[in-house]
């Protein structure tokens, strides 16, 4: 450093030091407010306030650009000026050097260091003088890479913005941008969570509440202190399934929607839900007598018996209504079942339109009693067996666990699947004894595998709500572990969300207690109930299981894919592993792997197996074959004309691409799931859907892919639209020139690979500092 020559220079140096310190203090305060702000507007207001209090600026304000008009709007400010004056100052700064709208993060700031000589000074000379504006700066704020606003600062000192100051304030603006991205990400996550809950509680076809909603409402109403009686009415549309078979699926949906609308219009304010495909349930509270329920049944019948329009035809649904009463027929939990039994019953009188529940109406009741004694005998005669479904690690392909599943080897009936008897086990109270047997048997068998020298795997055992009715679960688990001598670390307990929610405090206590001994837990059926992050945080679970229902449509439904993505992201952010259930195709497998899902079970690898078969698999060390395509350039071709496919394949293979091709859209989605496809080329005119629509869906599911459409000149309008919406990277007209095509494909792969490297880098950066999601100097 140069020697300081005289007093003036010393003073100047001190002043600059002081100024730099002020700006560092401001930066640090702003980073603190960023971490605390829950909403963008709070953040903006705090940033402006801090710029004045700590940075010593005379005015600070933030404008956001309205995308439609590109007008900038003042959203936060600090300092003595009026809103109108701030707008004028924004205009003045912008005129110095207009900010390009589409430059994104690379937009440079606007700096004015001598306000009084900067053009066009004449316009605002009075305002600049009155507000003591000598230097000013406008710094870009971005979100998701787009310029969305500007952060403005004004100082009463001339020449305020030197390189250091500009860098520091650009850093502040970059931190604000980062915080906005983080807040937006959080908002999207909250929205995905809420969507997931919605899908569990409302019927997607009609928008009316679902069975889950109705059962909760019913439990609340029955538990309410002022409830003396409750009637549940279930209206069954007996012709519905037949009609839907005749109609197109779309007309079927239209029909059921019409039915729902008419019911809602006729009975406003009455609690109603679609409890099964062809059944609506209604809840009547504190009726003056059964005649009131009968009257309502008659009215419901009136509405439903009218002809309903479906497409061009008028359809008759042949409704029949079942009625069950609380507390006479059943408690809250069985009431809907009783009303359903009544709705399904054959009335003695052919003209009847409704039927009250009665125990002898319940045609299942005799069978129920027979089954009950058969189940009791089954336990004594050791007719229950366990089957094991392998759970596979998606990185190594190896078997890492097995879910123990109960089967009943019923004499004269063969192997009875669990759904035919589990419900009854629960109702009859046998579940506790059978549950204990399952726990004992699973631990005993797992210990035996260990003694045989087989590779170590986790064994997973399901627990049902009923088993938590008393505090015996911990004792039962400890006894099974003690009797078998199994290491608790080998045992995993699977609980469904509903189990956890119904007995929350007790279940969480039990889980913690068992966790301390080394037993782990998995949350089963995740996503089908009231899945929320806040309760997930309280649970000592190691793993969550994504329900089969989401896995099934993973590769063709953007909303199911979004849910899977959200669930996996949510789990990972809490440090939990994810296992997907019911994986049946390579496409599903590929997609789950690309999302970072850790494990899977499903028919793709193996169905649940009898013990001997499972052990053969384990001993042979058989695993899931996982394809690695990291180095390949994989290209997908979709065209319904085989000749074109052949010609394209020939051209493209010359260049060494790995070419996948299909003439069917559905198979296209399957291939996208199963392989790491970089570039997609598809024909515009296909019988199942247009090329642009296919690519639009591809973009939603696999945003990283680069997409090209092949088309004739006549279809250009729809394609340009798709290009503008980002679904299509390029279009190539038919007939194509091979060289042009190859050039485009080469460019497309380059884009894909740059994007991939970029993502890999940001992931590595994220992994380096997981504790500080907002980064930046604090």
């Amino acid at each position, binding site marked *: 450093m140069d020697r300081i020559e005289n007093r003036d220079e010393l003073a100047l140096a001190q002043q600059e030091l002081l100024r730099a310190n002020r700006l560092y203090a401001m930066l640090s305060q702003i980073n603190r407010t960023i971490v605390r702000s*829950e*909403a*963008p*507007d*709070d953040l903006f*207001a705090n940033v402006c306030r801090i710029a004045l209090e700590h940075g010593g600026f005379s005015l600070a304000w933030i404008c*956001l650009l*309205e*995308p*439609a008009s590109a007008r900038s709007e003042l*959203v*936060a400010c600090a300092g003595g000026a009026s*809103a109108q004056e701030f707008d004028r100052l924004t205009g003045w700064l912008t005129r110095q050097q207009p900010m390009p709208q589409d430059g994104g993060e690379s937009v440079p700031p606007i700096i004015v260091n001598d306000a009084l000589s900067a053009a066009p000074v004449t316009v605002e000379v009075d305002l600049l003088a009155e507000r003591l504006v000598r230097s000013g700066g406008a710094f870009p704020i971005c979100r998701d890479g787009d310029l969305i606003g500007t952060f403005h600062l004004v100082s009463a000192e001339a020449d305020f913005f030197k390189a250091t100051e500009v860098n520091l304030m650009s850093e502040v603006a970059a931190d604000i941008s980062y915080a906005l991205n983080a807040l*937006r990400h*959080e*908002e*999207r996550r*909250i*929205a*995905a969570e*809420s*969507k997931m*809950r*919605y*899908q569990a*509680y*409302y*019927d*997607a*076809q*009609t*928008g*009316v*509440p679902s069975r889950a909603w109705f059962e909760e409402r019913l439990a*609340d109403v029955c538990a309410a202190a002022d409830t003396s009686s409750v009637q549940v009415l279930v209206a069954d549309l007996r012709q519905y399934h037949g009609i839907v078979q005749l109609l197109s699926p779309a007309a079927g949906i239209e029909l059921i*929607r019409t039915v*729902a*609308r008419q019911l*809602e*219009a006729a009975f*406003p*304010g009455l609690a109603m839900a679609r409890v099964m495909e062809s059944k609506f349930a209604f809840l009547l509270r504190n009726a003056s007598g059964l005649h009131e329920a009968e009257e309502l049944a008659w009215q419901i019948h009136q509405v439903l018996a009218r002809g309903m329009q479906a497409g061009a035809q008028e359809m008759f649904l042949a409704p029949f209504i079942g009625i069950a009463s609380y507390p006479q027929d059943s408690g809250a939990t069985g009431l809907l079942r009783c009303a359903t039994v009544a709705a399904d019953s054959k009335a003695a009188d052919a003209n009847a339109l409704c039927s009250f529940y009665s125990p002898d109406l319940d045609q299942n009741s005799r069978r129920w009693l027979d089954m009950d004694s058969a189940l009791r005998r089954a336990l004594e005669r050791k007719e229950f067996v366990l089957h094991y479904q392998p759970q596979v690690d998606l990185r190594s392909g190896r078997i890492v666990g097995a879910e123990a599943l109960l089967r009943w080897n019923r004499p004269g009936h063969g192997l009875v699947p669990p759904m035919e008897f589990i419900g009854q086990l629960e109702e009859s109270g046998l579940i506790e004894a059978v549950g204990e047997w399952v726990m004992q048997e699973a631990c005993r068998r797992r210990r035996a595998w260990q003694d045989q020298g087989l590779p170590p795997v986790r064994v997973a055992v399901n627990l049902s709500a009923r088993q938590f009715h008393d505090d015996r679960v911990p004792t039962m688990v400890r006894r099974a572990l003690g009797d078998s001598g199994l290491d608790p670390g080998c045992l995993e307990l699977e609980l469904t969300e509903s189990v956890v929610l119904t007995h929350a405090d007790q279940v969480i206590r039990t889980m913690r207690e068992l966790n301390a001994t080394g037993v782990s837990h998995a949350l089963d059926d995740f996503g089908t109930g009231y899945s929320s992050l806040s309760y997930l945080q309280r649970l000592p679970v190691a793993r969550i299981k994504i329900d089969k229902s989401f896995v099934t449509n993973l590769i063709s439904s953007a909303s199911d894919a979004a849910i899977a993505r959200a669930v996996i992201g949510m789990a990972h952010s809490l440090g939990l592993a994810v296992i997907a259930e019911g994986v049946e195709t390579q496409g599903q497998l590929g997609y789950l792997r690309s999302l970072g899902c850790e494990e899977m079970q499903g028919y793709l690898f193996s169905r649940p197996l009898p013990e001997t078969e499972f052990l053969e698999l384990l001993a042979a060390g058989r695993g899931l074959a996982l394809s690695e395509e990291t180095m390949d350039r994989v290209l997908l071709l979709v065209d319904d004309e085989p000749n074109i496919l052949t010609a394209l394949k020939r051209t493209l293979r010359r260049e060494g691409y790995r070419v996948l091709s299909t003439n069917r859209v559905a198979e296209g989605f399957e291939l996208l799931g199963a392989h790491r496809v970089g570039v997609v080329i598809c024909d515009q005119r296909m019988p199942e859907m247009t090329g642009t629509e296919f690519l639009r869906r591809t973009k939603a599911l696999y945003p990283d892919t680069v997409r090209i459409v092949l088309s004739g000149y006549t279809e250009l309008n729809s394609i340009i639209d798709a290009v503008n919406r980002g679904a299509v990277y390029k279009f190539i007209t038919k007939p194509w020139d091979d060289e042009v095509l190859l050039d485009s494909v080469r460019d497309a792969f380059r884009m894909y690979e740059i994007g991939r490297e970029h993502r890999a880098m940001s992931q590595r950066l994220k992994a380096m500092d997981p504790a500080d999601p907002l980064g930046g100097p604090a």
Partner: protein
Amino acid sequence: MSTQNTVLIADDDPRNRKLLTTLLLNAGYRVVSVASGAAALEAVASQSPALLLLDLMMPGMDGFEVVHRLKSDPATAAMPVIMVTAIDDEGSRARLAAAGVKDLLIKPVDRWALKAMLDRVLGGGHGQD
């Protein structure tokens, strides 16, 4: 008498209430926020807001039921309601339209979409500068 620039927010999630509240306060509106359908009905009666921003899914009384009750009371039938929801499926849209709700804001709420809708529904100019 409706209170010209009061907006009522009903959402059971405090994070969503916070977000909408700051956006509306900043736009110059007076904001009242509640966490349930029942509280929304009480606030409509006591505060006479110019507009209700209503979450569709809340425990107990849901958004559909709130709308139904508002529409069946002549005193509140004309009050504009905007549904704020994460879903956008055909079934729910159809059900909302049948209940008399035409305006839907999809979560996560976009600042400009909210502003455009407020301007349209309230005719603009209710927020103070």
